[in-house]
């Protein structure tokens, strides 16, 4: 699962790295806290569904990346990847007004960009 901020891939989570027990406990605590409701888009959601929770956690991930809080980044990234196994990309776009837009992509992994070298016209030729 890849996190992209303003089109640039910043970080990649590997689901094949097992979570340490302490981290698993922490994700459980996050679940329990969200069971009690979460603030989203200016309102309090008493019973948030999985997608609403994902958006809430993704917002927290963005903040932790901006503030370089490694432990919080690890926890929020792990929550998104482990609780939503189909999630492939978290795309974050920051607008000029400072508003943050988050897109969760489930159906397509990020493709590797491949450098393509085009032959230069005239290369190898001698011009007089």
């Amino acid at each position: 699962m890849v996190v992209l901020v303003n089109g640039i891939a910043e970080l990649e989570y590997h689901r094949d790295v097992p979570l340490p027990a302490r981290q698993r406990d922490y994700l459980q605590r996050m679940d329990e806290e969200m069971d009690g409701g979460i603030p989203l888009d200016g309102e309090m959601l008493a019973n948030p569904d999985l997608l609403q929770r994902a958006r809430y956690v993704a917002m927290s991930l963005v903040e932790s990346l901006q503030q370089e809080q490694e432990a919080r980044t690890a926890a929020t990234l792990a929550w998104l990847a482990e609780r939503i196994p189909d999630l492939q990309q978290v795309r974050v776009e920051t607008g000029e007004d400072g508003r943050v837009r988050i897109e969760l992509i489930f159906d397509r992994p990020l493709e590797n960009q491949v450098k393509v070298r085009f032959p230069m016209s005239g290369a190898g030729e001698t011009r007089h």
Partner: protein
Amino acid sequence: MKRTHILLTGLLAMFLLLASLPSQAMTTFDGKPGRVSDYLDDGKWTVVMIWASDCHICNKEISHYVDFHFVHQDEDARVLGISIDGQEKRAAAEQFISRHRVNFPNLIGEPDEVAEWYQRLTGNAFVGTPTFLFFNPQGKLVAKQVGAVPTELIEEFMHRQARAEVKP
């Protein structure tokens, strides 16, 4: 009572010893046991890059670290790669090295072992790739960075640290 005390002291000593050891699961790509400590403390900075062959960011950014290593290796710094591909994806890791003409030394380890080693070293859970660790010329871990870091910032950091050490 005294025996229990000795046993506890022995266990504590064993725990401390184990905690200070690097991951034994890491090997060179020749299959020999490899330790990060083998590459430290020789008067050069060591930038450790933890990567994976299927990591999009690593694939995109690796050329910058190849250039960095090329420019600095005979002077003040080197790059050491650690692949978390493990033995199962060893061939993919070898292809990554070959495809990107990676010129710096690399170790390979099982993902869980490398993550555990990282946590033991830094006190933080492993987040993802790429991750960077910065060891000063004396072999001391002085910084870490989760996610790609421009090589200009690495050079700036090294110079800043060197200037700080010169100051009385």
